[in-house]
């Protein structure tokens, strides 16, 4: 056992944790932005898959990784705008609209991918992102290679955590967003356009979800597989609850999930004779356990799931 838990092992484990957590951080932050404004976006799983597919195909055809990321963000925002049309403007059930968006986007992603590449024996690949070392910081032992020799998108994800926190708690926009999510009638009374704020938050959140998907096909892997998202959208939804709708705590949950995911991969790689499927289910099971543990203090925004119709008040 002593030979296993070396410095190299720990460094590799922490680096993998960061990578595994990144798409979930994007998803969790995107979902927090939407839910803080009062809209549960269950379209996340499909939006992430569309992001993964769009990012991949864009890079495959243009050769530009960043164009792929931009396209994924755009598609994510557009699908979220569709969600806004259904759940905000028409006021349809957020649960069912979101599931509809996920089913529709999942079908569309597979449809467009199949149409574009056909069904070759070997799926096409792109040359993925390479790690970019941060000057000086990357030379610190253990911490350097684990946290500061990463993909640029990983840095983005971690910079977005404080950015979203500042937006929500330290700006007037954030106050408006939280008011819309907690008490839309009060927000309307002080002249905030409730539906517009909700729409913008959904679109912004959708863009983040799209980028999270693109990370999977442009950095984490270099190809598009139909199950590439594999429930990470639902995990993100769970992390929002686990983190009590707070960006930092939600991201912490994503990191724990990333750690478990990385650990199972590493132990598998070391040839431990443990069935890998049992390892793969641990993060999902732990997420359920985590939800139970926080259930007593979970406090969702009061306006969540409720469409705001001015003519129906009072």
């Amino acid at each position, binding site marked *: 056992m002593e030979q296993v838990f070396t410095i190299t092992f720990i460094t590799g484990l922490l680096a993998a944790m960061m990578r595994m957590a990144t798409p979930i951080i994007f998803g969790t932050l995107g979902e927090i932005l939407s839910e803080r404004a009062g809209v549960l976006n*269950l379209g996340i799983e*499909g939006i992430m898959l569309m992001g993964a597919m769009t990012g991949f195909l864009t890079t495959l055809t243009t050769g530009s990784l960043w164009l792929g990321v931009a396209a994924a963000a755009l598609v994510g925002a557009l699908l979220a705008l569709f969600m806004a049309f*259904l759940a905000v*403007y*028409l*006021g*349809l*059930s957020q*649960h*069912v*609209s979101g*599931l*509809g*968006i*996920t*089913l*529709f*986007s*999942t*079908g*569309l992603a*597979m*449809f467009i991918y*199949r*149409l574009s590449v056909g069904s070759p024996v070997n799926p096409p690949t792109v040359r993925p992102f390479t790690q970019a070392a941060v000057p000086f910081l990357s030379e610190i032992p253990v911490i350097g290679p684990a946290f500061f020799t990463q993909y640029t998108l990983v840095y983005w994800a971690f910079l977005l955590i404080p950015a979203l926190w500042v937006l929500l708690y330290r700006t007037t926009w954030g106050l408006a967003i939280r008011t819309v999510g907690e008490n839309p009638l009060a927000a309307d009374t002080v002249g905030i356009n409730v539906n517009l704020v909700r729409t913008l938050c959904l679109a912004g959140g959708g863009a983040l979800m799209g980028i999270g998907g693109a990370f999977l096909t442009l950095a984490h892997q270099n190809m598009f597989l139909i199950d590439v998202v*594999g*429930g990470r959208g*639902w*995990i993100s*939804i*769970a992390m929002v*609850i686990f983190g009590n709708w707070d960006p930092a705590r939600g991201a912490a949950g994503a990191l724990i999930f990333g750690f478990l995911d990385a650990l199972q991969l590493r132990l598998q790689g070391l040839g431990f004779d443990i*069935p*890998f*499927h*049992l390892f*793969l*289910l641990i993060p*999902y*099971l732990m*997420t*359920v356990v985590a*939800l*139970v543990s926080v*259930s*007593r203090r979970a406090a969702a925004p009061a306006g969540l799931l409720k469409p705001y*119709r001015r*003519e129906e008040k009072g």
Partner: protein
Amino acid sequence: MIITKRAPLPGWVQVLVPVGAILVTLLLSAAPILFAGGDLWLSYTSLFKGALGTRYNFLETCVKAAPLTFTGLAVAFAFRAKFWNIGAEGQLLAGAIAATWVGISAPALPKVAVLILVCTAGFLAGGLWATVPALLKTKYRVDDVVTTLLLNYVMWHIMGYLLFGPLQMPNSSWPRSPAILEIARFPVLLARSRFHLGIVLAVAAVLIVWFINSKTVFGYRARAVGVNPRAAAFGGINVNSVIIRTALLSGGLAGMAGVGEVAAIHFHLLMDISPGFGYSGIVIAMLGRLHPLGTALAAFFFSVIIVGAQSMSRLTGVPTYIAEVIQGMALIVMLIALLLTEYRIKAVKD
């Protein structure tokens, strides 16, 4: 834009809503077909001919409709009591695993007894798996949408573990179970087809759920809990017990979908035993307006789309994933259609 409640529409309009939604969905699906460069007339004709054109194709559509009916009923029954069961996929897998296990090691009993054993095992496995999120909901108030979704992945990996481990066919490296015994297989009821016992069971399930919904105290209570849990509790209904029993029945129905796939179609347990039947169940239940008969009709319609998409794809080159796209569109269109029956939408300038 102003949205106001409208007076309740007559009953025949309520029935026409899903039909209208289906027609609109079929019209809208022209967009992806044209996008894929498919000829519209050929696409639609090959879709319906492929699903209904010959006796064999029609019976294949019935075969595909069976699991969809079961998952549709599972979701409809749960949604009616506002138990948000998005976990029919995992419950289906649980049923399939149990059916395989019993099917491989079936004791020497008469065929009828073995089949009852296989079905009971599958029903119970699916049902018990569904009571996990129901217990978490009632005991700890954990959101059922999220837990049912997450437990789908847990069950998928449990199946993966079994198929690479204890349930793997000996001397094989594929994730595949041994074949279930002949005696545990559903009999084929019509010659030169795969029309099997499971389809009859699906029809029976429709009637049973309809009976439970409209003729039993439990069905009445489940509906009361769905409409207003607080009022139901004031009325002396044990809400938690109703939710858990609803979950048991709902998961059991989804489990039966898995039983049929093992005992009548594949005879083995495979990783891709379900191409998302559990998720399709959500769309089917909504299109069927949570009514068992409507659900059965919606399941048949989706079966037409799935089976027909195969021949459409062969003839026009439109990818079979068009079926998934249509499914997603159908759910969204149906939601909007339901809104239009209850509300009036006026475009006005502020």
